[in-house]
């Protein structure tokens, strides 16, 4: 599904990703952990070309992202993304937020888009908020809308960048629950997170990044109980 080979990324002279190679299979849930500034977000953003790749190969759903001739918008239609800060469109209602992209990009009819949007809202437990504006929702509710918005494009892959770290603690659970059910349905997911409980329970694989490289990867048990790398252990001792 996703195939990354020797991915390098510079911001100016600052090398943030120093050769990332990895593969993510269909229906796999991969959790990315690591200290602040290690390049987790940058890595994720390279996967749907929100950041330009400096060198290396990134193939997502068969599209070569590094190739200038690739229609990036086509790739993005297949890859949903959920941001730390939600990024809902504040001038539209919840329903409009969800319907916009299917109508404008997939050219779905309005009725069809609305039907699907309402289904998704029901799925994330927010049916009654369809006509509310984002600012009137709590953080947890906004993030669930953001997930519904991404799902409305019926993507094959979902990327999550610390989806719960801007939330009050009581709201973390409701968002994680939605993500768990998504994983259970077999969605391919890449999740940057600090929620080790989630990684352990839901993740098929955990990747530990530090200073722009993948330090260690493996099953959750392996990483959390038997990390090989010194740095991994140091990091885990701080956050667990």
């Amino acid at each position, binding site marked *: 599904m996703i195939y990354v080979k020797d991915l390098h990324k510079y911001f100016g002279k600052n090398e943030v990703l120093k050769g990332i190679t990895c593969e993510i299979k269909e229906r796999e849930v991969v959790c990315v952990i690591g200290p602040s500034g290690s390049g987790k977000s940058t890595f994720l953003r390279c996967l*749907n070309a929100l950041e330009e790749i400096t060198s290396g190969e990134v193939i997502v759903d068969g599209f070569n992202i590094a190739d200038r001739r690739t229609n990036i918008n086509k790739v*993005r*239609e297949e890859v949903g*993304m959920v941001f730390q800060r939600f990024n*809902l469109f504040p*001038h539209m209602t919840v329903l409009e937020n969800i319907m916009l*992209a299917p109508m*404008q990009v997939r050219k779905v009819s309005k009725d069809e888009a609305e039907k699907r949007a309402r289904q998704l809202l029901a799925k994330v437990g927010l049916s009654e908020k369809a006509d509310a504006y984002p600012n009137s929702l709590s953080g947890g509710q906004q993030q669930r809308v953001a997930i519904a918005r*991404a799902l409305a*494009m019926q993507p094959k892959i979902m990327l999550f960048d610390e989806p719960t770290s801007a939330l009050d603690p009581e709201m973390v659970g409701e968002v994680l629950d939605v993500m768990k059910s998504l994983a259970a349905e077999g969605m391919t997911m890449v999740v940057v997170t600090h929620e080790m409980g989630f990684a352990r329970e839901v993740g098929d694989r955990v990747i530990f990044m530090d200073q722009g490289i993948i330090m260690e990867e493996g099953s959750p048990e392996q990483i959390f109980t038997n990390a090989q790398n010194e740095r991994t252990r140091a990091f885990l001792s701080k956050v667990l």
Partner: protein
Amino acid sequence: MGIRWDVISDYMPMFLQGAVMTLEITVIGVLFGTLIGLFAGIARLAYAKYGLGKYLVAIFFRWPALLYITFFRGTPLFVQILIVHFAIMPLLINPDGGWLIAGDLAREIKSEHGALVSGIIALSLNAGAYIAEIFRAGIQSIDIGQAEAARSLGMTYSKTMRFIIIPQAFRRMLPPLGNEAIMLLKDSSLVSVIGLAEMAFAAKSAFGATSRVWEPYITISIFYLVMTLGLSVLVSWLERRYGKGDIR
């Protein structure tokens, strides 16, 4: 010193007509200025990613827009009005050989509405330069996350601008646009130098004929105050209505 009420009452029709003219040129100036500012603002932000396009966009859009904005923000409006009226208009609209309009139509325009046309052009160009910057700031003030969210849904650059960025930027622009309208209202007093009969012109006429300062100038000051305060009430209403609250 007593107040000579007769000066005020004698010239009141002129003050009132002047006030109407002031409002007219302000409104027209804001409208045209917004149009000009929109184009100049977009031209100023235009860019191309690759190759030759990069230079063409710079030469034909970014630099001219920057030049225009710099000139009109960097020189006094007063000077701009004189240049437009006495130097540029005679080239463009001239009975014998105007570049834009010539012959009888030109004569007609010049003699009937010469000062009005020049005044509106100068005010609009001036306002446009400021509005271009308001527009640019408005677009740049929108959180980059909005564009990223839209792009990550597969929306194109132009659709992102149209559905996500511009609608939000426009709300933020309303208050500074209102302030620009207030500035323009006051600045319109300068077109009296080319003989356009707005409020300052009325006061000048009364002053010239009667040598009284207080009466005509305090009268129009009150008129201006009423107008600017009215506008600023509108602006603060807009600010409350469309300001930060609604956006985040």
